[in-house]
């Protein structure tokens, strides 16, 4: 089962006919994901490698009963693509695009949250945005809606994984895979300052997922998402959680690649995050391989 995506996910790709969109559409299909259609405004009515292409999300969704959209649209149009999907009532929207202006994301995230609330108030399942600047998500052995290398997901398992970083997601997933534990669902939430879904939003889903026994949280410097996650864990989680924080030796005031990875004043320091996890009794691995040991220890308790 896992969370958010599975065998029943019917995925459309916004920006399918672009370079990234095309190659990852193929890779998702290879993984076994039900990729049902593409959306490229102006190319509606054409065929792309066997997939029908539509001018709008609304058309594609209606024609294929799609329930997930993944977005590879360039930065200038990415927030609009999110809003298009959200207004079309797409329950899950995954924004891969890196480099979206922060103001665009502020506006889009706020609007998606409003639409989500309205949709839920009307009895819908809600509207969720994952990302941007994220690798997407994958439920091992079922469906990948993202850009992770397929080959690190050969061993389905029972560990949930949430990460702000793309490459560290792969690193962790591979470690878990190679250790024979494997992952249930991996969620890359993204490295931008303003994102659709945070650690604290994903944790309750794993807590409720019968196929997940423990959760690994890969955080980094900047912001206070890890602190919020720690607070949520302390108050609500019964399943064990293991954390990792990257950028612990980064200096203040310098942006470490991710627009969100910056220590500003006293906000976003590794000390604050370590203290928060300690207070929540969440072990924090010093190196990534330690994650494996800690997960094993937690599961054997």
């Amino acid at each position, binding site marked *: 089962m896992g969370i958010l995506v599975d065998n029943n996910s019917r995925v459309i790709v916004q920006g399918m006919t672009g370079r990234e969109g095309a190659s990852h559409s193929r890779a998702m299909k290879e993984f076994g994901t039900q990729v049902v259609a593409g959306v490229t405004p102006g190319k509606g009515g054409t065929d792309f490698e066997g997939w029908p292409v539509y001018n709008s999300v609304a058309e594609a969704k209606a024609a294929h009963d799609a329930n997930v959209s993944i977005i590879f649209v360039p930065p200038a149009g990415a927030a609009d693509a999110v809003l298009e999907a959200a207004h079309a009532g797409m329950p899950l929207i995954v924004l891969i695009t890196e480099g979206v202006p922060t103001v665009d994301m502020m506006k889009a995230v706020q609007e998606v949250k409003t639409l989500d609330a309205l949709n839920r108030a009307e009895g819908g399942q809600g509207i969720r945005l994952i990302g941007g600047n994220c690798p997407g998500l994958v439920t091992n052995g079922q469906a990948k809606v993202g850009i992770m290398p397929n080959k690190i997901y050969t061993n389905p398992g029972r560990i949930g994984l949430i990460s702000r970083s793309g490459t560290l997601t792969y690193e962790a997933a591979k470690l878990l895979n190679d250790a024979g534990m494997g992952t249930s669902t991996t969620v890359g939430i993204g490295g931008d300052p303003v994102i659709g879904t945070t650690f604290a939003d994903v944790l309750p889903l794993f807590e409720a997922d019968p196929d997940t026994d423990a959760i690994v949280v890969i955080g980094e410097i900047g912001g206070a998402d890890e602190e919020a996650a720690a607070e949520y864990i302390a108050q609500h989680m019964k399943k064990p959680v293991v954390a990792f924080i*990257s950028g612990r030796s980064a200096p203040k005031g310098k942006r470490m690649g991710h627009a969100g990875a910056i220590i500003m004043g006293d906000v976003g320091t590794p000390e604050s995050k370590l203290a928060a996890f300690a207070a929540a009794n969440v072990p924090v691995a010093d190196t990534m391989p330690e994650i494996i040991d800690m997960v094993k220890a937690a599961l054997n308790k």
Partner: protein
Amino acid sequence: MKLHEYQGKEILRQFGVNVQDGKVARTPDEVRAIAREYGQPVVVKAQVHVGGRGKAGGVKFSPTEDKAFENGEKILGMDIKGLTVNKVLVTKAVDIDAGVEYYVGMIVDRNVQSYTLMASAEGGMEIEEVAAATPEKIIKHRVDPVTGLRPYEAREVAIKAGFKGNLNKIADMMVKMSEAALKRDAVLVEINPLFVGPDGIPLALDTKFEIDDNAMYRHADLADWRELEAEHPLEIEASKYGFAYVKLDDGNVGVLGNGAGIVMTSLDVVNRAGAKPANFLDIGGGAKAEIVYNAVKLVSKDTDVKAIFINIFGGITRADEVAKGVIQALNDGILTKPVRMRIAGTAEDEAKALLAEVGSPLIQMYPTMFEAADEAAKDANAAEGK
């Protein structure tokens, strides 16, 4: 992109903020001419992209033309934290004692997924200092990114912050600052001090303004405000290659990898190994030989770097491509420092074969990032005689 004070003021002025008069000078004679034109005491202020210029002697009150010229001579050409002052802003001096200094600013706040407006009656000092000493004196307010700050909200914040003076005009300045932030994609904007004179009218005396690099494509009119001479030369070169590069102080190991997270972790691993990272360099996804070549070339130019640690997790990346790039750098005579690599990717064996063929001790592959980092640290520290 960080803006100079005079540039930030120019933007605020475009949005109708009442900004202290001032002009830019590049020579002491120009400073004198501006002081003469204003016919009143002026302040000569260094325009450099570092904090603490006041303490470094980069801001000087100049009661007369002659004094302004003299201060211009002192400040122009001055070195502040490694940056040379090429420009000064000459502003009309204000009688600070006759009024009050406040702080208003807006930052992108991950926690509220929007801007947070901050206001404090403790103006004229760094907001971090206020936050550390008297956090209760900072009023915070989430700004709706779609509507922007509204006048009534600005008034409520100003009242809570204890601002005195013309409430409507002070609120109006905050609203205009919010418009400037949203329209100009600010990551950070501050008006500090926001001076309120005896007439109650607010005046922006100094500002910080930083624009979201992701949004620069829609601010083409500001593109030539980017001052390459004010940035680290390696950062300029890195931006040409499209790398995310940050020069780090006091380092001896050059670090490069594919992805912000893995590079951040690489810095940590170098630290644990007892050395210091000299840079952050993310070469992005898909690393072909040429990209690796350019990255190695860039890092090699840094005289602080005594050894290079390459950490690649390749989904798509091929280890042999990485090896080829490094070998090419070696063959071209660019690479003179040891390279310690960990490449988790396809074609690891091919990479090993290529390296064996070259047979240079300068280039070695290791199965884990820890071993590679340990070797790089050992090499770098040894080169420094540690």
